[in-house]
């Protein structure tokens, strides 16, 4: 079942770590946000394959926004 990965803070997308098709484990960073001079990874909640990345580097995301989707 697909599952949305949501940003847990507001920030700017600093780096996209995982790409569609990549296998990730629970706790693996999918993207890295930059907020207030800190780099904060958004992690996968469970093992799975990345279906979709919904953001681009440099984009601002709000807390609760979907940044990626797991298969």
């Amino acid at each position, binding site marked *: 079942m697909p599952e949305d990965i949501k940003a*847990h*803070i*507001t*920030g*700017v997308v600093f780096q996209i770590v995982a790409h569609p098709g990549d296998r990730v484990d629970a706790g693996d960073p999918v993207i890295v946000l*930059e*907020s*207030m*001079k*800190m780099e*904060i990874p958004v992690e996968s909640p469970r093992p799975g394959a990345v279906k979709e990345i919904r953001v681009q580097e440099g984009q*601002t995301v709000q807390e609760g926004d979907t940044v990626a989707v797991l298969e």
Partner: protein
Amino acid sequence: MSSTLRLRKVLIANRGEIARRIIRACRRLGVASAAVYSDADEGAPHVRDADEAVAIGRAPARQSYLSIDAVLDAARRVGADAIHPGYGFLSENWRFAQACRDAGLTFVGPSPEAIRLMGDKIEARRLMAAAGVPVLPGSEGPVHDAAEAERVAAHVGYPVLLKAAGGGGGIGMARVDGVAGLATAYATARRRAEAAFGDPALYVERYAERARHVEVQVFGDGQGRVVHLHERECSLQRRHQKLVEESPAPGLPSRTKDGLTGAAVAGARAIGYANAGTMEFLVDAAGDFWFLEMNARLQVEHPVTEEVTGLDLVIAQLRVAAGEPLPWGQEEIAQEGAAIECRVYAEDPAKGFLPSPGTISALVLPEGEGIRVECGVAAGSVVSVHYDPLLLKLVARAGTRAEAIAGMEGALAACVVEGVKTTIPFLRRVMAHPDFRRGAVHTQMVEQGAFNA
């Protein structure tokens, strides 16, 4: 105090509380002040405080506060003859200091040469060791590969720290507890150092367990005359960023205190240091100490030094930058009473100090005898993702440390910041904690959870 300062107008290349602090000093000296601001800071308190203000670009710092061209252009537009960089942003960028000099502007800070030397952490370590300042056992220079790091680590003993040559502040730093973790940590730290500083070079230092971070405020005239303004205890940190600072450092043996201040002055003198700077040290339980790094700028925590000495560091910075001699001799600089600073950040201490951007819906600042507030925001201010999360600093001064803690407890209780999460609840737990109250602190306490709710 005479106001015949050679400077006429100072551009402040910063924002928030430190920009306001510098504007205040300019006003006391009768010097005009010019603020700069990004799109995100239009109408910010520091913009309103200044005599005039110039827009310098978009919200991301690289397009505004970190843009040397934009800042120099603003200085030209307002006809400033000096630039105060504050802390952070361009303050320790030697190219910026050099660009100011090339443009005929007075840079309120040390020389580009001193900034460059102290920015190269390996070179700084070497220079300080040569000046007789104790440094932690470690590699002579950069290590060339993981195998060399392993040889040095085996020699000095684990745990060790891998540190970036290109910059401080804990970035690219990795603790290694044994040979098993070294190769992986070396690769990661190299990558991070390259990303942060454009220089992957690493060096190795022994890791001092349960040490305290104690630093010494120094001030030089660039001609070899250097005084110190005593020490600050800054052990309570998260992610190598300070949360609480105080002066004096509680319970510091007098032999250690004298050793620290002597080493700090000798180190700063050895490089012909000009203006305000800070020599940072680690102090272990036995009272032995080692040089960490030198910050070639005004520190966030300078107010605790001002409160116990009764001296104004920013005014002194402006005077010395204008070519005046050091305003005080060493014998005039006394440390009296005790002062504590608490940093109120827009962070959620319940979630590992995650950033908490947002809009400040309500703000009540404490006041009272011995309470000083340095605040960069107002009700309605947007706390942006683009900048450091420091909102304001509370400083409490009293005759004794216990009274200063009591004053700080009152100030924290009276301080209301709504709309974003802040470190205030955490800071209240620190003030109430028995270990803090007896001055038994070390640099890992916060991350070990000593003050968790």
